[in-house]
């Protein structure tokens, strides 16, 4: 499901996330929902950032670009957009109430 650009995202309210990381990959268990998610390095960064504070796509792209040491570009933005779509479909994130 595609989501409007500019949406501010947050980790779904009521979710209870347990993390485990091996090398650059992560598994996240939402034990409120009983679902498990496999995250690559970029997805892990994105979810960590949203667990810290709600953010929209462009601010996520900027912060992740800094943390992985690259310049933000269209490819990174597209990748993070896909990641957000996947998180949303999986119930990990939701639009933050404004």
């Amino acid at each position, binding site marked *: 499901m595609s989501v409007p650009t500019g949406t501010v995202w947050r980790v779904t309210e009521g979710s209870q996330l347990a993390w485990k990381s091996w*090398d650059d990959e992560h*598994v996240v268990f939402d034990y409120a929902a009983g679902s*498990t998610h496999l995250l690559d390095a970029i997805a892990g960064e994105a979810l960590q950032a949203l667990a810290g504070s709600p953010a929209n796509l462009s601010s996520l792209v900027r912060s992740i670009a800094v943390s992985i040491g690259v310049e933000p570009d269209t490819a990174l933005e597209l990748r993070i957009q896909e990641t957000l779509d996947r998180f949303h479909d999986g119930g990990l994130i939701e639009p933050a109430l404004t």
Partner: protein
Amino acid sequence: MTVGELARDEFLARLEHPGISLDTGPFLIRIKTAIGELADEVRFLYGEFPVLPDGGITHFRLELRRPAGLRRWWRPQVFSLFDGERRFEPMPLALAIPTLEWSLNWCVAANAHHHVMVHSAVLERDGRALLLPGTPGAGKSTLCAALAHRGWRLLSDEFALLRPADSQLVSWPRPISLKGPSIDLIRAFAPDARLGRTIPGTPKGPVAHLRPPSASVQRARDRAEPAWVVFPTYRAGEPARLTPLSRARAFYRLAQFSFNYELLGPPGFETLSRAIDGCDTYDFTYSKLDDALPLFQALVAPSSRRVAGS
């Protein structure tokens, strides 16, 4: 006293009433039946297991019966009762032993939530456990049977039972269910393997049960540390190949094979995480046992241990 040490007449009488209670390691089970054909198969497959005194406490109580009335004679059937209640559809009488095995599996999968349960074969060498999770047809039971006859101790063909306290694997060495071509393959591979009769026409095709090796039954209380998780795939014509798999991916897949990890919540997650922490994890394809087994023997060598991230 083991099942095999009981005189046949005494075994049959106790099996019929009040039921024979067996110490299978983590679970004390009582099996009751008056079906003569089933009795001798139970006696063969569970011959090494200790018999408990009648009337004691057991975890699971199964009874296999034939329906009353004309159905006794027309396409005869068998059904199982768990604690006196019917939980399963009746099966053809010829499938009595698979029905018993499936019912026992159900008892544990539906009730033993003090363990994290994963659908996986488990074997052990030098206290270190190898998990072989697999979908039907992946070659899990074939590999398991072969390894169990080449120096590996059988913990289970169906259940990895992990203790939440320390992620150690608990042994439940029951008969191995071999299907289709695997039956003759194992007969040829391990002439000393003790197989029951081949039962045609099960929902899984022909099935034969392999009696668990004596040494595995005798060590049914010995636990093991998880050391390897290997996801097997049988692929005709392929050479045997172990391919490193990341621990995160192995965790994710192992979770998909678990009966109750999500139900258990945080303890389930922590138990599986701790298990994967201590494991080398691989995908494995094979077509021939003779090619496959040396790769598993090589895993045991201390020099084979992968470093984190490799």
